[in-house]
């Protein structure tokens, strides 16, 4: 997108904005003195870009509140940024304004082992929390594939999932308290270490709000005991149909594995080149399944899963024998998106969710879309949750229109199958035009009123989640055609 197509709303911009921010926070917390620096904050993990007017690196809540008051006074949008690993453009300042990087607010403020809670700053890396909790035999459950890099603040904003949320739930199920700064600078504290509170579930409303309700500055999360043991199974199938049939069969048998993941042949090629975990390259579909819990009985559970896979046509079955082997298998799965650079210079990933039983036919639709548009599509996804991740590969930004079209066809198929637009990546600026596919005008209007209650000035990450007239006109034309 070029700058002229953007709806820029920054009340003040350029030199006056930078000077004002420097006066407010000091030069070490403000980027913008050298305009070329700002180009390095115009992207995240996905395809959309927009250049911020300034970047601010706060040290604490007081900095964030002061910044919000300043921006409120001058009508400048504020857009939070964690590690910039997001896949829906959440951290992209589509209407200009200030990007708030939480890179310097990355501490664990308290590790309350007895109550199994941790109080952390939003810039803390997801994996660093689990690493710090491990000596106490605890961990933070949501484990997005980007967990080595992504931040807790980002996880809260996107309500992130991960392979192990099948059995244990997504981010919102693991957050008990938040400190947030509203777009007018008001500091609000919601919840705490206790499980439930009276009144409206505002934590529930805030988690997954993608920065559109305010900025999170402190998070209280649940820590969960590490399972005593795990069994990780790799099953290779001649076709994706057989692999997805196995997923339905495993769930139908009453088993609740900790994770069930699927990968097709194209995805496996990239992954195997990246980690060398021994994924069979000739298989049409690969299933990765993990069971965890008390050691007794785990082998039996694993055997039952293996038997179901065999009945559904698995040609290879392998159980990780060592911790190292298990870690390699997971490193492959978790590095899958990031390994796509081995196949193509760019990818556009979808995040649709469908009922598990519809996996085989929606996957067939994906493969038809791929053929029709002449675009390679790799599939790697949380099969247990029915959360698809078709990765549309392309090499040139000029192909983007065709790529978006393919993406839209896939999403439409997901919604028609009784599913939803996004499982864990967020709506952002990437799917906001598609919201009417899933929500009626009344539904969206109510959501908009919630947004207005938190952010009446519409300065908190504007241009996200809700369809915007300027950017979505093209889509509406397309949809009515």
């Amino acid at each position, binding site marked *: 997108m070029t700058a002229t197509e953007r709806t820029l709303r920054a009340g003040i911009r350029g030199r006056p904005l930078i000077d004002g921010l420097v006066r407010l926070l000091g030069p070490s917390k403000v*980027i913008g003195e*050298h305009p*070329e*620096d700002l*180009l*390095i*904050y115009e*992207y*995240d*993990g996905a395809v959309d870009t927009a250049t911020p007017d300034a970047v601010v*690196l706060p040290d604490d809540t007081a900095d964030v509140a002061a910044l919000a008051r300043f921006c409120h006074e001058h009508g400048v949008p504020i857009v939070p940024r964690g*590690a*910039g*690993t997001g896949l829906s453009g959440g951290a992209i300042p589509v209407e200009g304004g200030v990007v708030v*990087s939480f*890179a*310097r607010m*990355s501490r664990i403020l308290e590790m309350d082992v007895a109550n199994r809670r941790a109080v952390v700053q939003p810039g803390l*890396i997801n994996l*660093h929390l689990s690493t710090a909790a491990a000596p106490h035999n605890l961990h933070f459950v949501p484990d997005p594939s*980007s967990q*080595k*890099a*992504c931040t807790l603040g980002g996880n809260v904003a996107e309500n992130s999932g991960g392979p192990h949320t099948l059995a244990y739930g997504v981010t919102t199920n693991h957050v008990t308290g938040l400190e947030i700064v509203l777009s007018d600078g008001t500091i609000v504290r919601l919840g705490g270490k206790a499980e439930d509170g009276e009144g409206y579930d505002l934590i529930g409303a805030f988690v997954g709000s993608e920065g559109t309700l305010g900025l999170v500055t402190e998070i209280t999360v649940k820590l969960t005991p590490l399972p005593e043991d795990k069994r990780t199974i790799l099953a290779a199938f001649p076709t994706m149909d057989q692999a997805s049939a196995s997923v339905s069969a495993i769930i139908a048998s009453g088993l609740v594995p900790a994770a069930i993941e699927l990968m097709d042949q194209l995805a496996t090629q*990239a*992954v195997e*080149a*990246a*980690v060398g975990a021994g994924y069979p390259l000739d298989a049409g579909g690969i299933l990765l399944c993990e069971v965890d819990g008390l050691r007794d009985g785990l082998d039996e559970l694993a055997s039952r899963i293996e038997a179901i896979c065999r009945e559904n046509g698995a040609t290879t079955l392998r159980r990780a024998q060592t911790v190292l082997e298990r870690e390699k298998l997971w490193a492959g799965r978790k*590095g*899958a*998106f*990031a*390994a*796509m*650079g*081995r196949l193509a*210079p*760019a*990818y556009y990933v979808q995040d649709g969710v469908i009922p598990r039983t519809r996996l085989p036919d929606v996957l067939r639709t994906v493969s038809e879309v791929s053929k029709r548009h002449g675009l390679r599509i790799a599939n790697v996804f949380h099969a247990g949750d029915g959360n698809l991740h078709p990765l549309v590969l392309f*090499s040139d930004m000029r192909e983007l229109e065709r790529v978006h079209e393919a993406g839209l066809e896939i999403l439409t198929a997901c919604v028609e199958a009784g599913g939803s637009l996004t499982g864990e990546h967020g709506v952002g600026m990437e799917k906001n035009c598609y919201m009417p596919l899933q929500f009626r005008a009344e539904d969206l209007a109510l959501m908009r009123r919630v947004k207005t209650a938190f952010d009446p000035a519409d300065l908190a990450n504007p241009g996200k989640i809700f369809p915007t007239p300027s950017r979505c006109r093209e889509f509406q034309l397309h949809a009515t055609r």
Partner: protein
Amino acid sequence: MTGYPRPIDAPSPELLQRCVHCGFCLPTCPTYAVLGVEMDSPRGRIRLMETVWSGRVDVAGHTFQKHIDQCLDCRACETACPSGVEYGKLVEGARSQLELARKRGPLARLARTVGFRVILPRPAVLAGFVRFSAIARRLGAARVLRILGFGRLGDLLALVPTRVSSQRLPRSFAAIGARRGRVALFTGCVMRAAFSDTNAATARVLARNGVEVLVPGEQTCCGALHAHAGARDDSRALARRNIEALEALDVDAFIVNAAGCGAHLKEYGWLLKDDAKWRDRAERFASRVRDATEYLAAVGLVARPGAMRVRATYDDPCHLLHGQKIKDQPRELLRTIPGLELLPLVEADMCCGSAGTYNVTQPALSKALLERKVEHVVASGANMLVTANPGCQMQIDAGLRAARANVPVMHVMDVLDKAYETA
């Protein structure tokens, strides 16, 4: 804004487009860990290199210079990258363009020329320089320099190791026992001028394990420091001299005990890729290069080391771990020493801030990383730090001395050699 001054050496679009900007590299990047800004992350620097191609960023501008200069070239991001981005090649390409575009004062130019073209390629000159510095350091010159206001020179002098050795090695070491192999030892520049004891130790350890070691005299500096600093033509000239001097030898491998040199020697093919006359020779040469630990672990030890009562910890040199993917071999070798307890080191995979000439060019960042390293070494409870590269050795040794920690720093080959002495 006209793109790169010399596109043939510039970071190529083919290598750049491997990056899918996933961000996995951010937490492994030492400068991002310290500074927390995207421009000082591998992904940000790749973006900078891309935006030069599209004409939006100027090579000679503040942003490009500052953040390409601040990169350690430690290549930790390569280990983290699932897409296999070859970042080392990219940043060295970017540096080469920066050198062409940047305006240096006459003094800085002179210092570079003397350092790169006069001192490094001449072992005798370098050895003299090192010996002089060592004496000056013992006489307390660092303090004098600091008092006189030359703080940075004083800091540099503090890096000079307590013990330096620069004696000439015999032309060959005969294999002890049945001969299992024949190799040539790459003696390097700093290794030969300051750590020739380690070169001798490497040869002795190999000989004890049935490997005949030749020490060819015609070789020169590998040119790694030149390439890291963007002086690719100087680096290529040295590469051609080394290839000429060593390629005809009838040996199984060229053995290197300095990780920085090894990583660069293994990339001679890339360095000379556009030189039709030398490309193939360079590729063949590079394919024969082995780190000493890599070679020894592959052939296996036949002689059993003697016991050492020591609690050691191992710090990965970046250009061994990230540049050559050698992680287990040095640790395996250390574990063969009876009585040596190998303790884990937090962030062993993170740069100590030495990074070639980085501690000279970026003293503040280098110091921040060194302090981080020293803290972890002290916390490990080890009474010896082992590593496998002279730059890391000098840097961490200086850091531990400054912190008054009584932890000697040794090269893996020196540790093995010492263990064999007691066998």
